[in-house]
């Protein structure tokens, strides 16, 4: 059985990684997150929404990305509830999305003494994608008709005076997939309604051009985005709690890259050929 130095160096690296992350799970460290400009702009955009307008929390995600989108939704809904901004949960990409949003909002509402119907509402899952969103922007009560509890949405006080996308102060699109363009084209493009974007880490590159062009007001990127938002809310949530372990794992990988290079250059100076070919 060969037990080369490579065999053990790999095991040591893995053990280090387990320790580096595990230690910050067991030992609780108070995490501080630095806030990036896209996250701050999103926070400010929520703060700016006037009292007579509603915020749309567009839950276009499903349980698979709960670790990123779930925490983002939680932070954003917490902000709305805390500041008494009226909001509507909505979704059209995944049937489970609005249901997941509902669970989060129901869990949080008591803490800020808010009630369903007067402070927030859930429009539920609506099919039809682009065409539905286009119609919705024109006529909200006519397109949505019923909320998630199958009651007419006009019966809720929170919906008073909400007719079209012009009465929407901000759309918060939370998603792991390429749904943003629908809102940009059919709502922002026609009515100029501001859009905030919260997406998974891998989707973020798709969002930056929209941010640069001013088509979205802010952006939360994956778990880090959720943590930044929790920092802005001064609330120690799950995302912030994970940050020390995340940081130490990233730091370890960077340290490994440095060590790898040092070893490589030392070996090269001694004239030893690198063990394996180039990975090109």
């Amino acid at each position: 059985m060969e037990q080369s130095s490579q065999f053990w160096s790999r095991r040591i690296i893995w053990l280090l990684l387990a320790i580096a992350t595990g230690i910050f799970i067991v030992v609780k460290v108070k995490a501080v997150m630095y806030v990036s400009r896209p996250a701050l702009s999103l926070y400010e955009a929520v703060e700016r929404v006037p009292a007579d307008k509603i915020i749309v929390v567009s839950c276009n995600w499903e349980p698979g990305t709960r670790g990123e989108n779930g925490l983002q939704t939680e932070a954003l809904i917490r902000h709305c509830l805390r500041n008494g901004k009226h909001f509507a949960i909505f979704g059209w990409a995944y049937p489970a999305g609005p249901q997941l949003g509902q669970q989060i909002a129901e869990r949080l509402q008591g803490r800020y003494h808010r009630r369903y119907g007067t402070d927030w509402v859930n429009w539920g899952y609506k099919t039809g994608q682009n065409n539905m969103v286009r119609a919705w922007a024109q006529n909200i009560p006519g397109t949505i008709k019923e909320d998630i509890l199958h009651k007419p949405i006009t019966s809720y006080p929170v919906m008073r005076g909400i007719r079209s996308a012009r009465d929407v102060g901000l759309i918060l699109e939370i998603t792991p997939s390429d749904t943003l363009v629908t809102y940009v084209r059919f709502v922002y493009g026609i009515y100029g309604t501001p859009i905030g974007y919260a997406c998974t880490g891998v989707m973020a590159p798709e969002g930056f051009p929209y941010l640069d062009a001013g088509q979205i007001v802010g952006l939360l990127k994956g778990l880090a985005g959720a943590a930044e938002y929790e920092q802005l809310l001064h609330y120690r949530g799950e995302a912030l709690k994970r940050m020390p372990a995340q940081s130490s794992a990233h730091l370890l990988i960077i340290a490994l890259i440095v060590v790898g290079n040092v070893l490589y250059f030392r070996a090269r100076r001694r004239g030893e050929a690198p063990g394996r070919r180039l990975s090109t």
Partner: protein
Amino acid sequence: MQARKWAIVAAIYAVSGLLGAVALWGLTHLLSPVFRPATGVAFGLAIAASVVLWIGLIAVIHRLPAAVKKRIVVTATFVAGLFYVLEYYLPAKSAVFFWRAHHTNPFSPMIFTVGDAVSVIFGFTFFLAAFSLSLVHGKSIAARRPGYHNSIAFFVAFIMMAVFGLWETYSPDTTLIHHIGWIRRVTAHQVYDHLFNSMYVPLTATLFSVLSFYMATAAFRAFRIRSAEAAFMMVAAFFCMMGQVPLGMWLTHNLPLHGPLSHLRMEAMANWTLGVISMAGLRAVTFGVLVGGLAISLRIWLNLERGAFFEQEL
């Protein structure tokens, strides 16, 4: 010579395309009076007739020479592809569809049926997969090969999950055990819950998380500055890793959030790399992949593909 050959081939495809389109449309629309839901005796007769018809068709084709069979396969491939091509590239409404009530695309209404049919047929082929897996493990148990206990574990897990999955769907509250020793009331749902949430989900999540370990060693090994390429890759990876965690953002947190200097903040540089260079680079790759995919699709569709599956004898 070349031009003539080219023209002949084009003509063949044009004619067969037209015929295919008519056949596709005709099958569903001219025969639509036949394809109507039935009940009672008519239903039974229709099923019986379909089976007989099908077997007859198979028997006829089976007797045909290999070259004709091959032609049938090629035609089936062409017609199947033609459906999606016509549906998508013909407009939603056009005067071409003069016989339709609102001149709408006649293929569009079928697209959902075709989608359902494809998923149903794939659903039925799954049993082939289950069968071939069972065959491998069954042989291993029968021959008492080394490690045959693993095959037994496979069967136990397979059968338990299949049975309790069905039980969970149709009658989750069935009580399996009322009272044995210190065990009280076990329902089908509880067993399913343990199989799914306590075994399948953690197994999946854990194997997924093994990636994080492999990522560490891959980074350790791959990001050695052996060449300009490796250096570029490493620097980009460095910024993107640091731009996401407080530690990295702390390095540049003194820079202002607005103004020209803000672009030098760690997270801004990470996002810039992703949003400008990565986006453009991957898009260029995607354009190439799209053209490559189009080429291979065309070759398969028009029976021009060579090798592998396409030149085997029937």
